[in-house]
């Protein structure tokens, strides 16, 4: 219409006038009445009762409401113009209010949800909104990532977030009773996901992407290395495995090999693709080195930090087990 006005004012004004031409209410009602009568007198045959003869052009409920509201308002106006009497169509008022209120309600709900999400993002374990953060925000985040690369990245990010939270908690001084266990489990979950997805990438032949993700993951770990340590020296940590005392020195040598995981991963990825029945061996070999290089350097710092959530030897084993189980599932999905 705007375009038309620009092109030809004369025609546009004629068109506007012509649109204001409509039948009188009487005419309309008399025609509709006789049509209704005809329909009542000649109903559809019974066999067509459930048939969908008029196509499936469904209006969305809201658009339907809008349409109804405006139609009724037009009707009311016309009635007023013709007879001069103001009739209150209760329904029309109701619809008009409804179509105004619905967007407001939806907007308010969105804002509320958004606000909660924003607030939740800053939550720490033990906070009221923390379950919202891990349960809703992060789940949505990981669902929103479609490619394996993106998903691996997201999980790596979340794993490192757990570390950041542990640090924040330790700065705060007071540590809620369950926090350590919660952080630990959650970290293991995300770390395992990230590692498993890297492995999947490798098996799909996306060596480059896998390496990028791995580097990113390592970098994230290094950022928080002050918290990442082995719980080998403190007996009071409930998760500590007695055997980790022995394993800590062994892992100490890892920093020197920090460049190896990529290479060893390359070497073994072929095997992983070939013998699908036995995924455990390559999986654990590939993924195990990915964490220790970054975690081990933090060993010295470990003592100064009250919350060391990860990973001791037992946790590493758990992560590996998780990785393998995830890999098994992913493989099923791929085939």
């Amino acid at each position, binding site marked *: 219409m705007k375009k038309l006005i620009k092109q030809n004012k004369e025609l546009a004004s004629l068109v506007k006038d012509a649109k*204001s031409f*409509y039948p009188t209410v009487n005419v309309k009602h008399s025609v509709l009445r006789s049509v209704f009568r005809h*329909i009542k007198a*000649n109903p*559809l045959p019974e066999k067509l009762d459930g048939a969908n*003869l*008029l196509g499936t052009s469904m209006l969305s409920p809201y658009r339907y409401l809008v349409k109804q509201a405006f139609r009724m308002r037009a009707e009311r106006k016309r009635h007023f113009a013709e007879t001069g009497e103001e009739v209150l169509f209760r329904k029309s008022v109701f619809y008009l209010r409804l179509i105004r209120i619905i967007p407001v309600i939806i907007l308010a709900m969105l804002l509320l949800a958004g606000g909660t999400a924003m607030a939740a993002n800053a939550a720490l374990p033990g906070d009221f909104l923390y379950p919202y953060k891990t349960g809703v925000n992060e789940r949505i985040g990981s669902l929103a990532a479609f490619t394996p690369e993106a998903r691996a990245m997201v999980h790596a990010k979340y794993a490192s977030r757990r570390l950041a939270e542990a640090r924040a908690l330790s700065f705060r001084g007071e540590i809620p009773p369950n926090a350590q266990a919660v952080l630990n489990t959650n970290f293991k979950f995300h770390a395992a996901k990230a590692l498993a997805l890297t492995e999947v990438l490798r098996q799909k032949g996306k060596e480059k992407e896998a390496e990028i993700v791995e580097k990113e993951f390592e970098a994230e770990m290094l950022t928080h290395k002050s918290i990442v340590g082995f719980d080998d020296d403190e007996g009071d940590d409930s998760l500590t495995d007695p055997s980790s005392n022995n394993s800590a020195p062994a892992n100490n040598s890892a920093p020197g090999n920090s460049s190896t995981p990529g290479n060893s991963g390359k070497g073994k990825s072929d095997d992983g693709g070939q013998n699908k029945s036995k995924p455990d061996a390559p999986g654990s070999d590939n993924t195990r080195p990915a964490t220790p290089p970054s975690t081990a350097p933090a060993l010295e710092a470990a003592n100064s930090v009250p919350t060391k959530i990860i990973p001791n030897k037992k946790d590493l084993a758990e992560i590996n087990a998780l990785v393998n189980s995830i890999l098994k599932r992913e493989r099923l999905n791929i085939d």
Partner: protein
Amino acid sequence: MNNTERKFTEACEEHFDALYRYCFFKTSSRDTAQDLVQETYLKAWNYLMKGEEIKNLKAFFYRILNNLIIDEYRKKKTVSLDLLSEKGFDPGVNETERMENQIDGERAMKLLKKIPEMYREVIFMRYVQELSLKEMADILDQSENAIAVKVHRGLKKVEKFFNNSRTK
């Protein structure tokens, strides 16, 4: 009242004004418009009763109405087509309850009728009835492209036409 009946009656109500206007534009008679639109509805319903499916009810109404209008022309042709159209230009129809804007509307329609016949219909359908190109293609049984071209040319013609007839 089952689903089909409800949908159908709702559509009847919704499209009545537009169909009536369209028919009035082509026949220049309120009575004919009323009769033909009613006839259209009944025909459409009878078609449904045969168990036929209608994908786009709006376009279907227009198609039936178009055919009815053509039939109407033929019927009156024996009298004289010129006479009919002349009669159309005569505003002396007995309608006491007509209002200001209604008169404007009728006047506008009559002016629009001066557009060359080839383009008159498409321009009316496109701009007054606000039909989409796709709907028009359905109704007129032509390709969307052909109709778009027609509308475009029609607009150009109209420009010349109104510029000549009006101040300028």
